[in-house]
């Protein structure tokens, strides 16, 4: 099942984090399943426990299914000072969603994260690989609606 990904990387431990990134990015639910762990463990010949150890150490990996679009709102001080709390509230209202939860249609997962390194434009969030800054409550509506529109 993961042959295409394995073909890109030699079966060495040093490639583990790369392989996990790719598996997660290519899964429609952006997570790493138990089956995936088993296959990776066989491919690079390390115990499953080692893989779980690595998986759970790094915050970007998920062992639970998530939405198609991962929203990561920065909660670090520069963003907090510029009102990230209100943005969080707005996101929760707009998506009718709790933290670390996924919308019923599987479109969005809402997470908090530490500084994304765009503090000059705080408050900031990332949706998948795109950064959005100088956020206001109005902008949230525009951004979310745009993504919803594109999906249709």
């Amino acid at each position, binding site marked *: 099942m993961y042959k295409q990904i394995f073909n890109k990387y030699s079966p060495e431990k040093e490639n583990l*984090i790369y392989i996990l990134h790719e598996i997660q990015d290519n899964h429609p639910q952006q997570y790493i399943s138990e089956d995936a762990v088993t296959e990776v463990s066989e491919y690079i010949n390390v115990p499953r426990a080692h893989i779980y150890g690595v998986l759970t150490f790094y915050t970007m990996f998920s062992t639970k299914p998530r939405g198609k679009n991962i929203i990561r709102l920065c909660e670090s001080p520069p963003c907090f000072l510029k009102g990230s709390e209100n943005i969080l509230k707005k996101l929760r209202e707009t998506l009718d969603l709790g933290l670390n939860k996924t919308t019923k249609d599987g479109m969005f997962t809402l997470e908090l994260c530490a500084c994304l390194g*765009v503090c000059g434009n*705080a408050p900031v969030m990332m949706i998948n690989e795109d950064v959005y800054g100088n956020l206001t409550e109005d902008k949230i509506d525009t951004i979310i609606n745009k993504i919803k529109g594109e999906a249709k």
Partner: protein
Amino acid sequence: MSLVIKIGMASCGLAAGARDIYSAVEEYIKTTKSTNIELKKTACIGMCFAEPLMELSSENGTTTYGYLNAEMISAIIDDFASGQPQTENVILSDSLEGQENETLKAQTRIVLRNVGIINPESIDDYIGRNGYNSLQKAIKEMTPKEIVAEVKESGLRGRGGAGFPTGLKWQFAAHEKSNKKYIVCNADEGDPGAFMDRSVLEGDPHSVIEGMAIGAYAIGADEGYIYCRAEYPLAIKHLKLAIAAAEKRGMLGRNIQGTRFNFKLHIKEGAGAFVCGEETALLASIEGKRGMPRIRPPFPAQSGLWGKPTNINNVETFANIAWIIWHGANEYAKYGTEKSKGTKVFALAGKIRNSGLIEVPMGISLRDVIYKVGGGMKTDKPFKGVQLGGPSGGCLPADLLDTVVDYDSINNTGAIMGSGGMVVMDSSTCMVDVAKFFLNFTQNESCGKCTFCRVGTKRMLEILTRISEGTGVPEDIEKLESLAKNIIKGSLCGLGQTAPNPVLTTLKYFKDEYLAHIEDKKCAAGVCTHLLTYEIDEDKCVGCTLCARKCPVSCISGKVKKPHQINQEACIKCGACYTACKFDAITKS
């Protein structure tokens, strides 16, 4: 007249909407069928606060506009082309009068020499600005020993936080006898409030690659890794392009520029773990393991990646190297103070007007950084403190604003230079809350190996939480201090050793605030919600009932069209009524 238009397309620009600006210019070129406009991408000039930015230049001069939206574009281009440039939204200009820019004038750009000027995807742009000449000079005209000596002489100290002399570090690695050595670039930038490494990687990736190649030659390494945090996809993209281009031009790979020097460079992505910025954890992560720090010695110079001698430096450190090799150590050492030479890039964030990146000579005062280069406070609320060095650093008050910025002077205050993040705070910030945030951060990011770091930070956090909720007791301050001492002593890596700094410095400089929380149960900044009282101003309340409907614990009562009241006993201070009220009738104190 021919026109060159550049759009800043680094993460900060993109976050502010640069993509729309770029499309608008493309659209303009298409609809006006212009053949004399060259549209280019560049990175961040450092003025993130005014993004998205557009620079226009012609034989009549260069002007940069900011705070743009797509609708403004065609008029700006038309007017500029007609020789009557608009004077609104001008950020920088060499031709319009009265547009002297203090922010740039006070800066000296060595690390950021190309950032925001060149197209980072073009190796020709880099080469056009003296790029890769230092590498050629180094491998063709200098011995490794001479390079180490030059870097030592320059006085450059590591920009990753600790400020260890770079030349000395290279000397250690060069002295090791081994058939294999590595050179590693630490691009894991995780300090909240720091973004200079991102900007350099996105805006001038070749300067880091060139610095690493010179370093590799100097210590005798033939292979290198750049470890970049996965939160920086654009930096990773630009690095990959840059490495491929440099290989093609013979600046990387085998027999570089016809010499016997070989250097293969790889990129490794992190996966979200702050502690991986610590050098031994970073090496473990490159090897595909959990990023746990280990005891030093042995230092990476003796036993690093896969047990081989390894030299690790920060992005900004490497970005200085080519400049030093070209201009010479003496030229570099002209900038700075006796023990901190050269320039340093600072990331200004928080309640400061010109949030963004600046590069200034060491030795400038904090006051000048904040008020001259940074443009002062963003709001009319007064300055209260500045957090230096992120979660490992400390918070300094107004009466220390004349502290000069160099490693030793800042260490003397109890803060650290760190990676160069400066988070400016005004009177609406609660210092207990700030300390709590940073401790919460390090507590979360502790890898769990050392008991004091794992459990000690948790106990400290509990005490701070208690204080911010109004249940603190006077002994808590002593307890915080003694826990802090033990965490510093009992942790093996820098994460634990510096985790208490934000608490210790706020205790030192803002003790009154702690006491107000503990004794008077008051938070002057109005941040600690548990200590707030919400009240309804009877004169302003029109009895719309909105607050009563929003209140999650139904503690607001009153008749329609009559002033309402809050039952203080039942109130959970969530602030829902405060945000809901359309008549400003609810006060918090």
